[in-house]
């Protein structure tokens, strides 16, 4: 079992970071009821962990017994019926799904699944009808229509079902949905907090590390807790006992992007552009999301540039990322950015050095 899963806190009492949020959540559900919730925060900050712990707090240990189901939903959409296939993760008390997997049919899925949940409501120990919880991941990827249809559904079935929404940024969730939920912001843990988590894990595993080693891992992790733990584990596999000068392995794709960056800094020509395209393709085929590549590339380039060029390059990066979102094929826009950068840089060199 990976350490990330092994040391994921199971209850609200056991969380190490975000203790204040956990406290508040516990107070919130102390009467066995909760409003609709929207968790938002950057990746690796502990949204999912808090949600799972919260479910356990409400329903007890039975919320942990989950089964994976692959279900085909038959949806009646006016004139025709559509089959939507979706994987859900469910226990007796909750259902969890990624509605954005269904692509543009997501709005049918959301409505259908909530209706179904409303139909068979669980009965709690006192014989009263309880409620089920629907956990929706990546709501920011949900289409506008789906979000609009959510708002009425949320009110209509509020007696039998609670929604817990989880997203990376709350700007992409419509105001109407946001105002119907209790918003919980989860910030990325501070570096000291991550260090304390790593120390906790090390103690449990019986490992010892030299002074400053944890801090080095954390520095590379960009305040992403999950990544810090993963890196820590891979260091353990690489070499134990840890030595003071052990290098923390960077992610291989990041290294690759930084190679691309130094490639285009060295030479600006169509031939180099062609080579870079091959490398970009390789990143894409390895399922690195294009916007991450672009961001990383910008990050690497900004490190090397003069300050007067920084503004311009940033502007174009934002421009091409926006285009990429509107367009369909990411490689065009990545390449366009690289080409634009080459042209800017070359004319900069010519005007400075002649």
């Amino acid at each position, binding site marked *: 079992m990976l350490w990330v899963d092994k040391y994921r806190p199971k209850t609200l009492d056991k969380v190490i970071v975000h203790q204040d949020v956990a406290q*508040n959540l516990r*107070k*919130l559900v102390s*009467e*066995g*009821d909760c*409003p609709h919730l929207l968790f*938002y*925060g*950057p990746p690796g*900050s502990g949204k999912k962990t808090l949600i799972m712990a919260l479910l356990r707090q409400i329903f007890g240990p039975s919320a942990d017994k989950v089964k994976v189901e692959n279900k085909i939903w038959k949806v009646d959409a006016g004139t025709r019926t559509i089959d939507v296939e979706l994987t859900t993760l469910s226990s007796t008390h909750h259902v969890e799904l990624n509605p954005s997997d269904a692509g543009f049919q997501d709005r049918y899925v959301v409505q259908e699944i909530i209706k179904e949940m409303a139909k068979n409501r669980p009965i709690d120990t006192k014989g*009263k*009808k309880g*409620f089920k919880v629907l956990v929706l991941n990546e709501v920011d990827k949900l289409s506008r229509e789906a979000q*609009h*249809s959510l*708002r*009425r*559904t949320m009110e209509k079935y*509020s*007696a039998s079902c609670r929604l817990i929404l989880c997203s990376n*940024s*709350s*700007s*992409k969730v419509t105001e109407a949905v*946001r*105002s119907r939920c*209790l*918003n919980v*912001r*989860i*910030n*990325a843990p501070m570096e000291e907090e991550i260090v304390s988590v790593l120390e906790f894990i090390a103690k449990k595993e019986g490992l010892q590390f030299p002074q400053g080693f944890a801090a080095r891992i954390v520095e590379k992790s*960009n*305040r992403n807790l999950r990544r810090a733990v993963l890196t820590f584990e891979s260091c353990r596999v690489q070499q134990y006992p840890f030595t003071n000068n052990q290098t923390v392995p960077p992610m291989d794709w990041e290294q690759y992007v930084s190679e691309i960056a130094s490639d285009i800094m060295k030479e600006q020509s169509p031939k180099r552009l062609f080579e870079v395209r091959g490398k970009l393709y390789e990143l894409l085929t390895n399922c690195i999301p294009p*916007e991450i590549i*672009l*961001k990383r590339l*910008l990050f690497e380039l*900004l490190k090397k540039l003069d*300050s*007067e*060029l*920084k*503004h*311009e390059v*940033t*502007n174009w*990066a*934002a421009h091409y*990322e*926006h285009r990429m*979102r*509107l367009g369909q094929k990411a490689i065009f826009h990545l390449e366009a950015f690289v080409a634009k950068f080459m*042209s*800017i840089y070359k*004319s*900069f060199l010519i*005007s400075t050095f002649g």
Partner: protein
Amino acid sequence: MAPVMQSSQPWVEKYRPKQVKDVAHQDEVVRVLTNTLETSNCPHMLFYGPPGTGKTTTALAIAHQLFGPELYKSRVLELNASDDRGINVVRTKIKNFAAVAVGSNRQSGYPCPPFKIIILDEADSMTQDAQNALRRTMETYSKVTRFFFICNYISRIIEPLASRCAKFRFKPLPEEIMGSRILHICKEEGLNLDSEALSTLSSISQGDLRRAITYLQSAARLFGSSISAKELISVSGVIPNEVVQAIFSACRSGNFDLANKEVNNVIAEGYPVSQMLSQLYDILVDADDISDEQKARICKKFAEADKCLVDGADEYLQLLNVASSTMQALSNMPQDMTF
């Protein structure tokens, strides 16, 4: 289920005014509608104004007061944006409902005028076609049906429809009136709210009473019965002023790497960038030492970034871009790209 329902009922619904005269701060509408109650006669109505000023509340209240609970179902048709409202619905559902004539059978103290009411909530999200299809329907059945349109932007209602209605603008609520409503709710719910928290609540909700009440309820659920200004800010998703100031002063410093660091920080803290933009904008417009030309240049960039965010562009890049061009404008770097 009853007790659970009780606690989970939103306060917005619980404290929705039941009578027209309880609607706060919208005097003209209230006067016209009280008149309606006496004379049992009213024109088609068009309510417009920003969210949370009581448009839907007024429409529902007048309908309830005219017909009472028994006749309400048969006399009032309420459609909002989440119901299907394409041209087909206008042609069938609305027309069928509008066509059936009714008599005036007075009973149990309600005026019960001889017409029906169709409330079209969020009418600005209706398609042009659907609005066009309504024109003739409105006139043909004007004897038996009154239409109430409710919308945020009157410019999205086609002119022929708007000219058939009596228009009423709903004003944003001023702080005192909002404060008195909030205090009333606090008293009913047994909450403790100091004056600082009250003024914070008024300022973050910007004249939108519904939003203020929602924030209040969220805060009450999370933090218990005594609520401070800081806790209100944390539930409302408003970014603390220090963070916004930090970005702004980083832009003033002209140091790109510093700005980059601040932007990274904002993203890691999980603050929504669209909110960030609107708060930055407030600071920018109020700043005295920035020339109008600079402001104009920066605002243009804000607008572009906002559009990009709506399209779903990456938050980090957009915010960084805004920061970088603000910096350029403040240090009067040439507007055109150098290379």
